[in-house]
């Protein structure tokens, strides 16, 4: 059993029972979680920004950074592990996309991240079955590969399931 820790803009997947796929302290970033029931593989990408067009160079070194390049990169990785290359049959869940207290939503990158992610998912015919998005708290996400159970935590709050 080991932890697969994903930093900002990183993606990864595991099919080893007992592994935990984890990312820490999502602020406006969003974790896209893919579960492939057929191969019992869990994948996650820590998306920081909605679109790669602001810095195409970054895509070469860290495609997971952006929604439009991170999701295809994760699908490709999971395809190499025996999953469907277009994610058919995947269970998709989303967490993160928090914001600062701002009624005008000026700084709401989290919302833009979530919208961009959904747009990319739709292109693959995918949609999330569960989400914990928005609000004003950071989130740490842990996914148990054996069970697919997703635990969310935030400093000062009780853990909750997605």
């Amino acid at each position, binding site marked *: 059993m080991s932890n697969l820790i994903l930093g*900002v*803009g990183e993606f990864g997947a595991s099919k080893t029972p007992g592994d935990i796929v984890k990312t*820490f*302290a*999502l*602020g*406006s*970033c969003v974790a896209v979680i893919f579960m492939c029931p057929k191969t019992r593989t869990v994948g996650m990408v820590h998306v*920081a*920004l*909605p679109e790669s067009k*602001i*810095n195409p160079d*970054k895509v070469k070194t860290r495609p997971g*950074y952006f929604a439009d390049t991170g999701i295809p990169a994760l699908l490709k990785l999971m395809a190499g592990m025996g999953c469907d290359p277009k994610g058919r049959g995947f269970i998709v869940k989303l967490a993160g996309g*928090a*914001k*600062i*207290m*701002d009624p*005008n939503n*000026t*700084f709401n*990158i*989290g919302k*833009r991240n979530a919208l961009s992610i959904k747009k990319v998912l739709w292109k693959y015919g995918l949609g999330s079955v569960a989400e914990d998005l928005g609000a*004003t*708290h*950071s989130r*740490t996400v842990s996914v148990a590969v054996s069970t697919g159970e997703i635990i969310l935590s*935030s*400093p*000062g*709050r*009780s853990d909750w399931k997605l």
Partner: protein
Amino acid sequence: MKQRATKEEILAAIKKVPLLSPSASRLLELTASSDHKLSEVIDIVRCDAALTARVLKIVNSVAYGLVHEVSTVDRAVGYLGERMIAGIALEDSAAALFHKELKGYNGPKSELWNHDLRTAIASREIAKHAKQPINQDLAFTAGILHAVGKAVLSDFLTQSANEVLAEIDDNEVTDYLAGERNLVGLDHTEAGYELAKSWELPDSLAAAIRYHHNPADTPEEHRLLVYAVHLGCIVAMMCGSQSSDSLQYHLDKNYTQYYDLTSEQLAMVMLEVNEMFDTLQSAMTDTKGK
């Protein structure tokens, strides 16, 4: 309910916080003035053997990836820039504060430093979008210092995070600052300001510490700087923070009087923060204790 410390007890504790090193104090004073020369920064580093060693280790660290070794202080300072020199001196001088576990905010060790470093980078990047001339290096230094009050207040706020967050969720208080004041009579910006006075920090840096969550209250002469730190702190929280107060503050929409910042530029700032943070943190961590 747990018996909390009084404001007087906290103020007494602030007076006991060790002073900054002479090098750190002098660097802060110097870099806050508008008419200093880089050679003066170099002279301060040269006169401090420990600081010299640390600066050289950092500039030659793997994270910076320089082909040729830098062996002189003037080249190292020229390469790193005075903002980094001030940051290194501050971190070395007050490591016990910056890297302590933030028990009162359920934050792990170094959480304060990580947030401060992200804020510093973000504040400097935001300063590039100012409508008036601003010292970008000073915005970086102000970012490093802005939340230092949390290091002091944390010890008096243990096991309070769920209580404060519940008050915010129930609209009993407007933000985390108000929650802090409810519990112990002062908030972390006020505690930080008291520490700034004890450390005799320049007025501009003290203003950034005191008003970074309420920039409109800043004296006019420091408002441009403080709005940069206000936005920088918010960007740092958006980039991720393991502290109970993360994102529990308000954005002051009047920043638009001082800064032009489109949503695309904001995204670019966040990108730069994440990239630079990895580089700086790696350089500063890898060179400790060697």
